[in-house]
């Protein structure tokens, strides 16, 4: 159904706006196109192989190559969204809050105790870590732990600047 405006001035204004309307339609189409890529949710039936949690290797060896499975999850919007939901549902927020940390360490600071690669994050979730982090491999499927790892990985941003003193320690100042 299309009925032109009876008011000619309005009709002229609408015609002038037509190119913008077309551009908007094109933009919506483009958005849908990029969203199409993310509808392909990555799947996994198992965790990564050979995850290391230290930068030390015997005889100056190199770290093992990353399991390609992790690359499918890293940066994937659907995996990150699913991981974010799990992050609340499994009460990860109870210790890590929204990435800033609390009882548990910060996850967005870029400082990693057991490695910040997505397969290392997976291993920390699956295996648990000392002093509080439980192991989740008995209660979560590998797919869910990959989603969680993708979300945790997505939180990480550049480190916060370290402290600075206005007055050097060890100084006595007269009031």
């Amino acid at each position, binding site marked *: 159904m299309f009925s032109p405006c009876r008011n000619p001035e309005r009709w002229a204004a609408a015609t002038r706006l037509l190119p913008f309307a077309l551009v908007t339609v094109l933009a919506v189409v483009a958005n849908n196109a990029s969203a199409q890529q993310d509808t392909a949710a990555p799947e996994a039936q198992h965790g990564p192989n050979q995850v290391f949690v230290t930068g030390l290797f015997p005889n100056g060896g190199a770290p093992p190559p990353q399991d390609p499975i992790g690359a499918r999850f890293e940066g994937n919007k659907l995996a990150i969204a699913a991981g974010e939901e799990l992050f*609340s549902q499994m009460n990860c927020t109870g210790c890590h809050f929204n990435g800033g940390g609390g009882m548990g360490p910060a996850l967005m600071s870029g400082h990693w105790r057991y490695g910040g690669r997505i397969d290392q994050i997976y291993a920390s979730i699956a295996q648990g870590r000392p002093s509080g982090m439980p192991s989740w491999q008995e209660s979560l499927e590998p797919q869910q732990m990959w989603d969680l790892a993708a979300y945790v990985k997505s939180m990480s941003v550049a480190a916060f600047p370290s402290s600075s003193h206005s007055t050097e320690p060890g100084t006595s100042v007269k*009031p």
Partner: protein
Amino acid sequence: MKTYAWIGRASPSAKAGPGGNRGEFTAWDPVEGKAVWTIKEDLPLWSGTMATAGGLVFYGTMDGWFKAVDAKTGELKWQFRTGSGIIGQPVAYRGPDGHEYVAILSGVGGWAGAIVAGDLDPRDPTGALGMNGVMADLKMKTAPGGTLYVFALPKS
């Protein structure tokens, strides 16, 4: 696929009260039931306090200042910048040489100090049950530590 209970998004928040200062040091008159003097402190006061027979009261701040104030008036008499925030308890004792010493542990921590001690990220104000939002500046004001400072009173 398993299903899980919805626990909810953690979004606690906290902020400084009226006046904007996050701590204050108050001398109470328990008989009259009122404050005699009050020192407003920018950061929360997490340290213990100690009054001496010499008429001084000692306390420490979370940015590392160890302070001595006049017990009667609250006037600042002396302060010393230690290496880390103070949440410890000042102690005075008579040494084997018969002189008086004042000791304080410097090393920030506790709930309000967790942002430094636990290397939390101040960009998430909900962290540490909302204390991250209150203490977001502490990383710029002090560093983790663990040092015992002992001061000798002037020998007269």
